[in-house]
């Protein structure tokens, strides 16, 4: 029981810190005249792109013993998860109806407008985003394991690994089931009254940045300090420890096949996650099938150990060898594990589309399917692209579920990096980490280019 409450407390702390700083950064980078704000946005997004254990590795190289504590875990996990509330809030602030803020600006300062109007307006969505961070932290294995902090996910893994006991993993899953149910009920009750259409029509934008005046140097220094100390330095430590270019060549030689595989699996998996997410979001919105939301969040929160056991028991038979012994099993596991991200992202944007957009298509003779294809989907294309690339990033850095299910000879880059960390020279491990960053950054660049094209 103590372990249970300790784990909840840890996840709540991580959620609080990530959301607090995530919102501050989002406001600074979206609404103000802060210098180099786009660069800062990119820097603080970087930890999201890496397998969490690599971020933990970078911090441990830099901060020695101190990092192996409750505060260390909170720090590392917060750095890893800040990008989620930061990017989510950034998008919300970008699309909010500016007239709400403009009408309040007549009465008070920008700080007052943010505090009394903007943040309260987006608070239901912030709650959704916070719940994602909470669940990610709750189910995290690699960081807490690396930093030697015991949580009940670690316990579940140890019970499974050391004692071959499945029962305790199932019991712990029931606990997570209860937490997820409580969270969703609270969210449904709280958000029900607050889901108003507060956003401008998609595609219509205007800008009115806050002039920071006397505060711009202090805020710039503050953000620069945070970016340097908690993102740039740990990652730079990895680069520095790789020493020479020849190490990169040696490292690449070890992992070239798995890089290729990782991109394929993540690419295909992200597509199906986005597709599945859209289908779920659509049914949740149009038919109120909240049970779908519940299950998608539950599978997201469940420890990968449990999901792995379920998949092995379901698919490890003669008749299903074509699934189990191939990458299909990993793709299926990814869809089950990560659909919640896509579902929630698409749902929140789908909710913002005026009902009249659909209705006007229907009265013009379009069937429901035609309306979805020609009206709904094109209006959500940016959301789909964002969902695709977010899913891609999560999949390419996944180790927990992949490790349990990949078939021999089909390991992904993230898994191979994890296994090579044992007894490979430090320079090679550092070089591999840097290669991992590059592998993930390339699709991000592709995303920016595609956005411009579409």
């Amino acid at each position, binding site marked *: 029981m103590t372990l249970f409450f300790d784990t909840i407390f840890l996840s709540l702390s991580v959620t609080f810190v990530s959301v607090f700083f995530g919102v501050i950064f989002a406001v600074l980078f979206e609404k103000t005249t802060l210098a180099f704000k786009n660069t800062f946005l990119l820097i603080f997004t970087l930890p999201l792109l890496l397998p969490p254990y690599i971020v933990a590795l970078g911090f441990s190289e830099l901060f020695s013993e101190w990092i192996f504590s409750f505060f260390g875990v909170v720090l590392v996990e917060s750095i890893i998860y800040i990008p989620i509330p930061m990017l989510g809030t950034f998008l919300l602030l970008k699309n909010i109806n500016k007239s709400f803020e403009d009408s309040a600006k007549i009465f008070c300062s920008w700080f007052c407008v943010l505090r009394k109007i903007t943040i309260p307006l987006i608070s239901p969505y912030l709650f959704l985003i916070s719940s994602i961070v909470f669940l990610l932290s709750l189910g995290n294995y690699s960081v807490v394991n690396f930093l030697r902090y015991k949580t009940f996910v670690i316990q579940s893994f140890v019970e499974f690994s050391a004692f071959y006991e499945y029962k305790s993993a199932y019991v712990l899953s029931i606990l997570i089931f209860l937490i997820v149910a409580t969270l969703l009920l609270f969210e449904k009750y709280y958000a029900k009254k607050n889901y108003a259409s507060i956003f401008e*029509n*998609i*595609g*219509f934008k205007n800008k009115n940045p806050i002039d920071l005046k006397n505060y711009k140097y202090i805020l710039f220094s503050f953000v620069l300090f945070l970016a340097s100390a908690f993102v740039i330095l740990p990652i730079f430590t990895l680069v520095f420890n790789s020493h020479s270019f020849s190490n990169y060549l040696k490292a690449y030689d070890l992992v070239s096949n798995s890089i290729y595989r990782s991109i394929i699996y993540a690419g295909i998996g992200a597509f199906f996650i986005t597709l599945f997410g859209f289908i779920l979001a659509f049914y949740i919105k149009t038919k109120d099938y909240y049970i779908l939301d519940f299950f998608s969040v539950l599978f997201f929160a469940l420890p990968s150990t449990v999901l792995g056991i379920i998949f092995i028991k379901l698919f490890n038979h003669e008749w299903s060898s074509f699934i189990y012994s191939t990458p299909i099993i990993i793709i299926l596991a990814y869809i089950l594990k990560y659909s919640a991200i896509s579902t929630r992202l698409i749902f929140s944007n789908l909710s913002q589309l*005026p009902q*009249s*957009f659909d*209705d*006007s*298509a*229907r*009265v*013009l*003779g*379009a*069937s429901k399917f*035609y309306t979805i294809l*020609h*009206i709904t989907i*094109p*209006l959500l*294309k940016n959301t789909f692209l964002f969902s695709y690339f977010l899913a891609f990033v999560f999949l390419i850095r996944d180790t927990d579920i992949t490790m349990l299910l990949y078939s021999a000879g089909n390991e992904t880059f993230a898994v191979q990096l994890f296994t090579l960390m044992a007894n490979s020279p430090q320079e090679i491990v550092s070089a591999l980490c840097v290669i991992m960053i590059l592998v993930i950054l390339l699709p991000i660049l592709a995303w920016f280019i595609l956005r411009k094209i579409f």
Partner: protein
Amino acid sequence: MIDIKNITKQYTKNKILENFSLHVEQGSRVVLFGASGSGKSTLLRIIAGLENIDNGEIYIDAKLVSKKNEIIIQADKREIGFVFQDLALWPHLNVAQNIEFGLKIKKVDKEDRVEKVKEILKKVNLSGFESREISQLSGGQKQRVALARTLVVNPKIILMDEPLSSLDYELNTQLRQEILSLQKEFKFTLVYVTHNKEEAEFLADNILYM
């Protein structure tokens, strides 16, 4: 043309319409006038087949289209035009693409579509606006595009839900003139919702106070 017989519509505990009946003659102009929350917009949605009814029956051209808890003929099959209050112009499509949407559904071929779009834009005084983006249009221009999109498919009935409410007096006056002349030209049955008395008196053959 439109026969509404003793319909009731309720949202949770609120009865929006109760034993409501209405008969609309073909080619006539009926204005639904009343305060907010009186069920005017709901009635339009029910006629269009976008909402069902809790009781009663609705006939269009003597065909039963809706009955208790059942939409017998779906919205896409009723061939009714609808101009929404927020106009619902799709921002990802330009003016021509918005207007030709209904024609595409009816599988009208490309050349005919281009011709019809050109024609209807002329009728609403927006010639040459085909490739404009919706975001580039003024309030009045958007209104005309919404009208054009509805008219181009030749519906027998057009429903309008406070389409001019956000326009200034001058534009409002100008556009209601245009609506009236288009109605006389195309001879569609018009069911129009407004809370503007002057608008109601100008457009209506019959005003229904709700």
